[in-house]
Every structure is written in structure tokens, then in C-alpha cells.
């Protein structure tokens, strides 16, 4: 369970948002919408523990989570708007490296299967340099499927994905929620998740 109590974010002298409270239960997705510059990414980075809120508190499973809290880090899979891919490494190596960084054993087979699932089997041994933005996004999706983490935080996950990719994303996130996972996603486009599982939050 992820809770936020009276969160506030400041950018310079201006308040991006104040008094923001919500609660996301297992199996639910918090879908954050709002115009550009209303603080969606800022909120997601706070929830991920990358930055400290100007005011208020974030709780993970009832315990306050300060930035870089170990319990939260162990439960979290974060996909920011940067793909964290190395141009010099192949798709397969990138994926294996990112999964190993999370302390998860990623065998060759499971990495290949994950890439097959996101329709990147033919790009497996290509360096990330030559992949398109959408294909890079798909590696990020494959990464999420390999990380057994209850909390997913996704910043603009639909960006650069084609129709099939967006469908794949919806299916993967819905599968995660169905297994009792939590998700927080900032988005401009509809994610295509089952309405019963979605908690909308509009900023600005």
C-alpha cells in the first residue's frame, strides 16, 4: 500500500502542488494526468524516493519512506522518462545488466523470452544505438516483466510506443495489477487499463 499525506512540491518560489493526499492499494493503479509543468514527473520522482517532498509524507506499507528508503527500493521498479540504456551494449546485454542491477538473477533464457514478449527477438543482438525510441521503450517494458516488484512507477510509459506497443503495455500493466501489484503512472494518453483498477489523479 502506497500512501501520500499532504505532499507539496515547490519549483523555485512557486508551488507545483500542495496538500496532495492519496492512497493506492494492492491491485490498483494511480493514473496521474495534468497539463505540462503541473508536477507529474516531480510527483513520481518523490514517490520513487529520488527527491524529497517540500512538505508532507510518503508511506510504503504503513511505514514512512524517506528518499532512498531501503524497503521502498527493494519493492520498487522505476521507469523514468530516460531509458537507462547504453548505446554500446546490445538489447540483450542492456536488459540483463539492468535486471542484475536490481539484484535479480536473469538467465539468458528469461532475458530472451522477455525480449520475445515485447517483439524484439530480431533486435536482440543489435546495439541499443541503432534502436528506435519505441524499441528502446519496449526494452524498458521487458525489464518490468523481469522484475518481481510490487510497486511500478512509470513516467509517460506510452510515449514513442506504436498502437501494438501501447496494447502490450496495457496488457503487461493489467497483468501486474491482477497479480496484486501497484502501479503509479503519469500519462497524457489513456493507458487502456480496466476502469475498476484505476484511481485517477489530475494535477494542476
Amino acid at each position, binding site marked *: 500500500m502506497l500512501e501520500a499525506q499532504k505532499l507539496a512540491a515547490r519549483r523555485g518560489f512557486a508551488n507545483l502542488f500542495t496538500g496532495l493526499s492519496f492512497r493506492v492499494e494492492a491491485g490498483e493503479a494511480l493514473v496521474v494526468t495534468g497539463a505540462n509543468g503541473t508536477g507529474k514527473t516531480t510527483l513520481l520522482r518523490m514517490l*520513487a*524516493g*529520488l*527527491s*524529497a517532498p517540500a512538505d508532507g509524507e510518503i508511506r510504503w506499507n504503513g511505514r514512512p519512506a*524517506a*528518499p*532512498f*528508503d*531501503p524497503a521502498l*527500493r*527493494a519493492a*520498487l521498479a*522505476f521507469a*523514468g*522518462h*530516460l*531509458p*537507462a*540504456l*547504453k*548505446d*554500446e*551494449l546490445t538489447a540483450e*546485454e542492456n536488459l540483463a*545488466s*539492468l535486471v*542484475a*542491477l*536490481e*539484484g535479480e538473477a536473469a538467465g539468458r533464457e528469461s532475458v530472451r523470452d522477455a525480449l520475445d514478449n515485447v517483439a524484439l527477438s530480431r533486435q536482440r543482438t543489435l546495439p541499443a544505438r541503432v534502436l528506435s525510441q519505441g524499441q528502446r521503450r519496449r526494452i524498458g517494458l521487458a525489464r518490468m516483466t523481469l522484475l518481481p516488484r510490487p510497486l511500478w512507477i512509470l513516467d509517460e510509459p506510452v510515449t514513442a510506443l506504436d498502437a501494438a506497443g501501447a496494447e502490450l503495455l496495457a496488457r503487461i500493466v493489467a497483468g501486474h495489477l491482477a497479480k496484486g501489484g501497484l502501479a503509479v503512472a503519469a500519462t497524457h494518453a489513456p493507458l487502456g487499463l480496466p476502469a475498476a483498477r484505476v484511481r485517477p489523479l489530475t494535477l494542476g
Partner: protein
Amino acid sequence: MTADTATAPTAAGVVWPALRWAVARDLKLALRSRGELGVQLLFYVIVVSLFPLSTSPERNLLATMGPGVLWVAALLASLLSLPRLFAGDHADGTLEQIALSPYPLVALVSGKILAHWLTTGLPVAVLAPLLSLQYAMDGESVAVLTAALLLGTPILSLLGAIGAALTLGLRASGSLLALLVLPLYVPVLIFGAGAVDAVRAGLGASANLSLLGAGLLVAIVAAPFAAAAAVRIALD
């Protein structure tokens, strides 16, 4: 840093895999972009070789000057390669993932620093005996110089990592990094180059080398924590 003290009880189990991950990945990336590494080493070789060409060929003068020149070139080579330590990972988002990994950030940062030394400091020290041929140095001086470089270059990587992390995401970070780090390098330079002077004066190098060794131990213990804290600040 509170987060890392909290994970301390299970430290041994997670520190090794974290170190191994960071060293293996950074070495692999360095090997994939060999050109960049080659340029840095070539820079070091050229700087060292320019001095005998531009000053006098007098043997005694060269032997006096040699250790200092090699040390300054090693310093500059280290400085040249420092931006690579964190800036690439910061720009493509990997640094966020590194900071959010369940592994202790200090262990991951230590691994990155070790990989940096293996790809820059170590080759610089290994090339030193070859390059010192140009300076008519005697055998003992060369041995002491190499030992001093082996002890001193890891300190350069460790201190440099703090500067590299502190200047992440700033404009003109390269020149700021030089201003920040070069003063910290001065003691290493003094004791490192001084070791050979002491040998030439007949005093023996043990005092200088011991001081370098002590400095290295302090840097190994303290610098990764400072660099890790700076990485977190850079991400905020």
C-alpha cells in the same frame, strides 16, 4: 546515507555482487569504446614526451624533472577521464536506476571508481617505466616512481569521483571539475613526486610511500561515501 546504514547488517551479502556488477559493466563499456581510452593514454604519453623535446637533453636535469613531469601528466590524464565516471550514466538515466537499486549505493559507486582506476590509473602506472626511459632515470628511481603511481593513482580516482559527482548536471562542469579536484590532488602530487627525490637524496622512499599508502586507505574508506552522497544530491 541513512539508507545505507540501515542495510548494513546484510552488508557482506550485497556488497560483493554490487561491486562486481559495477566493475564488470564499466569495464565492458570501456572496452566497447576503446578509442576514448586510447586517446586518454595517448594524451599522457604525448605530454610526457613533450618535455624532453622542449627542454635541454642534459641527463641530470632530465632525471630531476622526470618524476614531476610523469606525475603531472598522470594527474591530467586522470582529470581528463573523470567526466566519463558519472556523466554518461547521468545523461541516459542509468544513474537513477543505480541509486534506486536495492544494492547499497556506496558499493556500486566503489565499483565504478575501481573500474575507472583499472582503465586509467593502472595503465598510467604500468606505462611509467617505459616512458621514464626518456628521462635517464636510474633503476631504483623508476621502481619507486612506479610504486608511487600505483599507490597514488587510486587516490586520484577516489578524490576525483567526489568532484565528478558534485559537478553532475552543471554547465561548464568540466572546467569546474578541474578547479575543484586539482587542489585536492596537490598532496598526492607532492608525496608522489617527492618519493623519487627522497631516493635520489639517499633518504629512501619509505616515508613518502607510507604516506601515500595511508592516504589511499583514508580515501578508500571515506571517498565512496562522499561520492555516493553527491550522486544522491545530483539526482534530487
